[in-house]
């Protein structure tokens, strides 16, 4: 195994860990706002690490640039959609969970 392969390996695994944390957060967090926190942050970071790991294996510079573009698009998309869902949830009167409430 070369150094690049090992680095790629580690980055990919780190990405998987963040995806896992995002899923656990989605299962455990009490309301839609906190779940959005988990998805918007952990999953995007997971995708970022997967992207970096694959970047090291990219066959050509054009593919590498495309990977970065996909990641940036996914970032912009999930930030925007997350904002839209959160805003609509608030406008439709969904009350955020408080630390005293039952889950």
């Amino acid at each position, binding site marked *: 195994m070369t150094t690049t392969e090992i680095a790629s*390996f580690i980055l*990919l*695994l780190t*990405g*998987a860990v963040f*995806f*896992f944390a*995002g*899923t656990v957060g*989605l*299962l455990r967090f009490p309301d*839609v706002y906190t*779940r*959005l926190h988990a*998805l*918007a942050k952990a*999953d*995007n970071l*997971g*995708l970022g690490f*997967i*992207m970096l790991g*694959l970047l090291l*294996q990219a*066959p050509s510079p054009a*593919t590498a640039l*495309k*990977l970065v*573009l*996909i990641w940036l*698009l*996914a970032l*912009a*998309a*999930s930030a*925007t*959609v*997350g904002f*839209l*869902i959160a*805003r*609509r*949830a*608030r*406008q*439709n*009167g*969904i009350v955020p969970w408080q630390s005293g409430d039952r889950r």
Partner: protein
Amino acid sequence: MNTLLPILAVFLLGNLLVALLRVARGPTPADRLLAALLFGTTGVAILLLLAFATASAALLDAALVFALLAAISGAAFAQRAWREEQAEAAHDDD
């Protein structure tokens, strides 16, 4: 060939499905549309892994389309489909 990529793809698919089961339970419509966000990140990651595992560059384009369309359906939902309670929620907005 790198054996890690298919294993990671399976792991992420499992993650996606568990999260989908949770999301399908609701309880609010907003919870359900978190599925759009899930496909926009986890779905894209799975496609990227598949693209590199099978060395088919065209799957990268599919991943690009995935990210775009998850965003479109999420936006369509938030802007158009779910505004029933807006009238009575407007006064306690601020």
